[in-house]
């Protein structure tokens, strides 16, 4: 899996698109162009770090609509909007929906590259978080059903004795399972387990 970022440029204006791709290329980025939101959506999205340079107004579904669609699909590609004419309503909507930036054409190189860098940085952060969560899930999956029951009760703040009572097992058994869970999840304390539970979206004590 390549780790070099790929920048997606969606703009129906071929001149603009070509110019942006050239600029990104010259700035050392790998970039790919699309003439419409549909064009973008039908292409397979490689699992690479990257960001989306999105024209606000496009024929068919607009940039904002693509933003909403990606959000729904859980595609966390950071978006930098580009527009020929920015109106307040659109920019507010875009930023609220999590856009990295909202740029007006003609856009200066530094502004554009800076926005791209920030978008890539955000992507990196998001990817890192996502990878951490993925690893946690793998580890969690290695727990036995008994160990998961113990885990849930630990993060619920229960004592070994209470757990043993609830599960109808020996307190010593609980202790052994607890050590196993801590080792498998690479946790040092009950507090660590609580944080992991949140990441795993396991029910926690209310």
């Amino acid at each position: 899996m390549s780790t070099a970022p790929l920048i997606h440029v969606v703009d129906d204006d071929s001149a603009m698109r070509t110019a942006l791709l050239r600029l990104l290329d010259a700035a050392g980025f790998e970039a790919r162009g699309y003439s419409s939101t549909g064009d973008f959506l039908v292409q397979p999205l490689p699992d690479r770090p990257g960001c989306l340079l999105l024209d606000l107004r496009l024929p068919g579904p607009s940039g904002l609509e693509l933003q909403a669609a990606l959000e729904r699909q859980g595609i966390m590609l950071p978006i930098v909007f580009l527009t020929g004419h920015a109106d307040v309503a659109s920019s507010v909507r875009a930023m609220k929906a999590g856009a990295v930036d909202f740029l007006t054409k003609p856009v200066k190189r530094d502004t554009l590259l800076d926005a791209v860098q920030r978008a890539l940085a955000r992507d990196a952060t998001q990817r890192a978080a996502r990878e951490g969560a993925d690893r946690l899930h793998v580890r969690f999956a290695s727990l036995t059903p008994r160990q998961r029951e113990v885990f849930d009760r630990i993060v619920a703040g229960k004592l070994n004795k209470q757990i043993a009572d609830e599960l109808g097992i020996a307190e010593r058994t609980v202790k052994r399972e607890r050590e196993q869970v801590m080792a498998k999840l690479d946790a040092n304390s009950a507090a660590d387990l609580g944080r992991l539970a949140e990441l795993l979206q396991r029910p926690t004590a209310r």
Partner: protein
Amino acid sequence: MAHALITALVLCSFAVPLRAAEEEARVLMLYGLDPYLPPMLAMDKAMRANLASETDRRITFFSEALDSQRFAMEGLEPETVALLAKKYSTLRIHVVVAVSRTALDFFERHGEQLWPGARVVFVGFLGYEFRPPALPPGASAVLSILDVAGTIDIARRLQPGADRIVVVSGVAEVDRRAEQQAREALAKLDERAPVEFLSGLPLPELEPRVAAEPPDSIVIYLAQFRDRDGRPYEPHDVLRTVVKASRAPVYGAVETLIGLGAVGGSVASYESRGRLIGEQVGRALAGGPPDPSRTVLAAPNRCVADARALQRWSLDAGRLPNGCEIRFKEVPIWRQYWWQIALTLAIVAGQAMLIGALLSQRRRRRLAEQAEQAQRAELARASRLTMAGELTGAIAHEINQPLGAILSNADAADLMLDSGMDRRDELRAILADIRRDDVRASEVIQRLRDLLGQQKLERKEFDLNEVVSELESIIRAEARRRGVGLEVRRAPGTLAIMGDRVQIQQVLLNLVLNAMDAVAEVPEARRTIAVSVAKGENGAVLAVRDRGRGIAPEHRTKLFESFFSTKPTGMGLGLSITRTIVEAHGGRIWVESGPGEDTVFQAELPLTMASGASSPHPA
């Protein structure tokens, strides 16, 4: 005093009264002189005119000319008589008008033989008969008087200081009689100035002789039928020569001389003589004994002068005797034709006033029209500015798009140069793109300037398809901005119309923006508009269709009125201006719609000849 001469006479040795009124009356004109002399013609004309009114009988005229002045009668008489006897042997003549003494003499000698029973009317012609001839029984006479004394009197009045009198005459028999009469008149006149008679001078001699007369002499021209060498003349021609040569005024005592250059004289008019002759002939035809008191008649003499001759010799017309007839007066044309002129002037003046009024009216109307047109153009421009305001987003997009591309291309080029690699081909491509985008941006700006600039109305031929093409990018940008679907259809071929391109663009923009407004609130699926150009029955049709909520019937009639709007912020001018523009181009605009149906605004504009020919799809 004037001497008159008279003659007359006639007889009726045995008067032959004409029997039946229905019988044709035959009158023979027997001329002793040339019947075509002007006095003869004048008299003949007056006589005939008068005779026609004297009798209702049909009169046939015959004429014979002895022309004794130019042909000596002596040798010819037997032959003449023989000829006439033969000519008239079976033709009965009722009245013979014997013109001149020669004719009367001839009649006395041969009348009984040639024209038995005919009564004679003697016409003492040219007035040179100064003794009453013995008239045959039953005859009557019309005489004229050669009033030399009266003529000299007139000359004296005009030239009181004249110290010479020259009398020009010929040597023919009539010439001599006239000269004799003149001598007698002068003898009685107590004329102090010397009088010289130039009798029978050949023209080449007469001419310098007259020309040598000092300007203050009096020249009296009697008549010259023949010079001393026996050469015959037409007396009027001689007068013309005399008048032309003479520095002194020339007078004449015969009416026909007045008008040929003579100043004037005391003359008997042919008109009055003709009347008297007619009267006598009429009476003779009627038969019965002649009226003794009317046997010998003489036409009165009176003063006649020629205004042109008076002027030529600088004579004062005011000195002429009272009642003198001044002929050939150059009556000022306005006096002669005063009412025609007045009428003409009135008509011309009337026309001029009418034309002036119409011109001024037209000018006023044109000024008003210009003002109105300017106002309309200004209003249309204001409306375009308003539309431009609505289109700001689309316009900015259309301009910023190429500008953005240019900037990014330039930045890319910059980076490429920094990289130190040889990327010449790419740089060249970039420069080409920059140029293209620059042109694209400036075209948008140019189109906006056309649309918004303060310019004069144009009248040029252009293709309606092109109008749509030119605005398509902006319309598309606006449609995208508003999230409105747009369909554009052009007509095949050329749809050439005549008029102001910008105004037609305005019509298109107005209809498109209205349509976009109309679909703003409808569900996304229906949020589309369609612009089409097609050839219709009566011209090019520009149609804009939307799938909005439609127009209520009660609004449809008011749509194109000023200040009517169904939009909350509408001024109500757009469609009114649109209609004004379309109608100014000779077209019409209408809308088809109902609640819940598609709304179609259609503007039909007349095609020029060119497009009719080039359109591949005739209607």
